[in-house]
């Protein structure tokens, strides 16, 4: 296992000077993930914060080959790139011969849970050799904080506004990691940037597994969560400690919970400092916090039942 000192000695493939917000949760994930590659890597990127803010013409923050084509087809794009590489390699048309090249696709929750779901599903089913990394900040932050299917229950967004009658988003969030696991992929995991060693280990496993692999990483968003930029990592930590964002992996069909909090943090502690949940602590929203807590508890208990057991 590489240490931070080892990682720091490697070349920075994602430069500063991008226009992502101060305190954004995405760049630390991308920087760490790219450092785990020992081979050249090609990235595809769905439309989203990461894409628009890192490639404002004529600047690019990427020191690797990078492609963006549209919102909904990142997984299809990387499938095509990977297939072209395999075909050219077979015909001996790759300069440098049999060089091993890896492929990664980045998408936000909008570009993965909602808009890019069909292309992701297709690419997973076809079994391309790539890693799909979803950074989940729980809404369409780039276009003005609209709800997505990853937005938590009860959350205030511009398209699920909390008012006097309706208290934020009425629907439960989609469990994308489970949907991906249902494709019988060899490796899928959930991670968080606050636990860099866990994220690095999972990335290593995903990179070194043949076939489609998937990482779902929570990404704190000071803009859309209405939190302080310096608290981003704290919020990622609380999301995990409260069991809202369980860290687990599914390797060859066997689920393993990789982190169990010694003492579960209450959802109140995590939600209270977040502006997007301030309405649930005001009069008129009685019972909402309890409802959120019971949903999280129920999910965590279910997950623990599967710990160490095959899920398909």
């Amino acid at each position, binding site marked *: 296992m590489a240490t931070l000192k080892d990682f720091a000695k490697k070349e920075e493939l994602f430069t500063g000077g991008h226009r992502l917000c101060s305190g954004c949760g995405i760049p630390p994930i991308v920087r760490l993930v790219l450092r785990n590659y020992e081979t050249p890597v090609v990235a595809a990127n769905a439309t989203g914060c990461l894409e628009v803010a890192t490639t404002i013409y004529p*600047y690019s923050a990427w020191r690797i080959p990078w492609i963006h084509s549209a919102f909904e087809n990142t997984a299809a794009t990387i499938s095509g790139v990977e297939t072209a590489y395999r075909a050219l390699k077979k015909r001996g048309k790759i300069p440098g011969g049999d060089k091993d090249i890896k492929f990664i696709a980045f998408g936000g929750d909008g570009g993965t849970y909602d808009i890019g779901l069909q292309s992701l599903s297709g690419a997973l089913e076809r079994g391309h050799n790539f890693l799909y990394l979803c950074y989940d900040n729980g809404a369409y932050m780039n276009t003005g904080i609209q709800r997505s299917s990853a937005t938590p229950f009860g959350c205030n967004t511009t398209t699920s506004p909390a008012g006097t009658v309706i208290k934020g988003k009425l629907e439960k969030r989609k469990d994308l990691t489970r949907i991906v696991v249902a494709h019988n992929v060899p490796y899928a995991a959930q991670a968080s940037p606050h636990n860099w060693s866990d994220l690095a280990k999972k990335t290593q496993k995903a990179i070194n597994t043949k076939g489609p692999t998937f990482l779902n990483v929570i990404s704190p968003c000071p803009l859309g969560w209405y939190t302080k930029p310096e608290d981003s990592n704290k919020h990622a930590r609380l999301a995990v400690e409260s069991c809202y964002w369980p860290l687990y992996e599914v390797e060859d069909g066997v689920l393993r919970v990789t982190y169990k909090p010694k003492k579960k943090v209450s959802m109140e502690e995590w939600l209270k400092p977040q502006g997007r949940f301030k309405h649930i602590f005001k009069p008129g929203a009685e019972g909402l916090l309890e409802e959120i807590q019971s949903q999280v508890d129920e999910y965590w208990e279910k997950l623990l039942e599967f710990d160490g057991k095959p899920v398909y």
Partner: protein
Amino acid sequence: MSDKKSPPIGGVIERGGTAHEYTTGGWRKFKPVVDHEKCINCLICWVVCPDSAIIAEEGKMIGFDMEHCKGCGLCASECPDKITAITMEEEAD
């Protein structure tokens, strides 16, 4: 990098990582300051920095890239509680 008056043919960006030439240091309200005597070079600041603005050489934290640091304060808040080598100071006008 071509200037705006003479863009390259086809608008091609000829190499990667050009964002490094764009400075975001002007976003800062607070600046990080490190006390090297307290610092244990754990490099937590380096891994949490969204702007690749912690300069690490030979496994040691040697300072900040102030041209790109946006002053988010993640390095200071994640610096281990017992160490607190990094603090945030108000940026002078």
